[in-house]
């Protein structure tokens, strides 16, 4: 493929997803300048590897590259921030059941949750560990399917569900504190 063809393909198939790319990078790096750097680097990679892209919808493909570039970047520049040990199975069975019971019976009116201030939601989302934050962004902001999210984050679909489940309960717990 000539450089010209690659550029054309890039402009036709990939560039339109720049919005999704930037939003994901921004939520993962939590900083505009860094997000821009990451997106530029990701787009360079996307261009270089564009011959490997086959299909109509380049969004999951681009977001995979963006996500991986973000994590490499975070590893390099923000390793000091990872002071929690990310444990996939953090909750015991008892904990999960207690959580569900709380959902069923206590807590704020649903309307109050839904109308929570933008700042509070943004803050709560930013405070989630990145592995949880990214599935919320990919599901609730980009409306991708579990399958697509699984591909982008390189995890099984069951893990997508359990992370989303846990992320939402963590968000709720955070919001409940504020309301």
């Amino acid at each position, binding site marked *: 493929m000539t450089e010209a063809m690659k550029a054309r393909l890039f402009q036709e198939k990939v560039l339109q997803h720049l919005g999704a790319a930037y939003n994901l990078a921004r939520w993962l790096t939590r900083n505009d300048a860094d997000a821009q750097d990451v997106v530029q680097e990701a787009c360079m990679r996307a261009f270089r590897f564009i011959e490997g892209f086959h299909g109509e919808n380049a969004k999951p493909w681009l977001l995979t590259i963006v996500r991986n570039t973000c994590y490499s970047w975070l590893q390099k520049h923000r390793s000091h921030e990872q002071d929690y040990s990310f444990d996939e199975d953090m909750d015991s069975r008892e904990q999960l059941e207690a959580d569900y019971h709380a959902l069923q019976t206590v807590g704020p009116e649903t309307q109050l949750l839904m109308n929570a201030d933008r700042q509070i939601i943004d803050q709560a989302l930013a405070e989630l560990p990145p592995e949880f934050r990214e599935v919320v962004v990919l599901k609730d902001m980009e409306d991708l*399917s579990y399958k697509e999210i699984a591909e982008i984050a390189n995890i099984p679909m069951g893990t997508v569900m359990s992370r989303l489940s846990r992320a939402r309960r963590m968000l709720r717990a955070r919001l409940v504190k504020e309301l």
Partner: protein
Amino acid sequence: MRLDCKTCKDQLDLYVDGELDVPQAIVFEQHLESCPECKRAYEQMQGIQAAVRQQATYFAVPDGLADRILAGLPANAEKADGEGQKDQQPHRRNRWSWLGAGAAIAPETAWKWLGIGASAAFAIMLAVNIQLYRNLPSDNQQLGQTLVEDHVRSMMTGHLMDVPSTDQHTVKPWFNGKLDFSPPVIDLKAQGFPLIGGRLDYIAGHPAAVIVYRRNQHPIDLFIWPVTQGQNEPASMAGKHGYHTVHWQDAGMMFWAVSDLNKAELEQFAQLLQQKLHQQDATPVS
């Protein structure tokens, strides 16, 4: 089959995210109808999802990012072909130099012409794409949508023209050696549709000439490619988000005019072009 609360708990997120199949979803909903506790749990989870969807910030692409990304790519089209990998500098001067001083159209101006911000432009881009897949358009409708997309994309990236020039005697010969046909380049400045330049484009895999005109603040892309002999009257279509197209066949060429200009004026543009095309045929011009 009735669901118990334990299964409901396990399926809650799947249901909220539409990942249950229809029979599973129906059984789930039946349980909610008869179990106020699980119903509440569902509403709380759905409330969180809605809160994120509606309130969380979706960060808009900052101005200039798209331009910087494009400028950083190895240049495309005629300069890169046959030259293999080269460093960016010479290409930048050739292909993107018009982005700098003396540019006919700077990307910022392109944004202003669109009259909307970068993120809105992307939203339109996305919406046009979605419509493409939702409807079952006729061939012409599909082509029209593709061309509107191309037009919007050119505006977004600031890549409106490869050859910015108001002189038809500069624009027409520019296509020599780049296309295997010679597109008619007609000036309609006197009629209020001045020529502003041209570019090379690819439509459905084949090369096309795009002659760029202007009506006041509205750019008009005129896509031209050769077809087998045929002639018909201009037919206009409404595209999405206020874009219009007018297309016709004449003198062995397919013409598609695309713009956010209103339908009446775009049709007028097409009529004027056709008239002038026939006048030109009558008197040979070099």
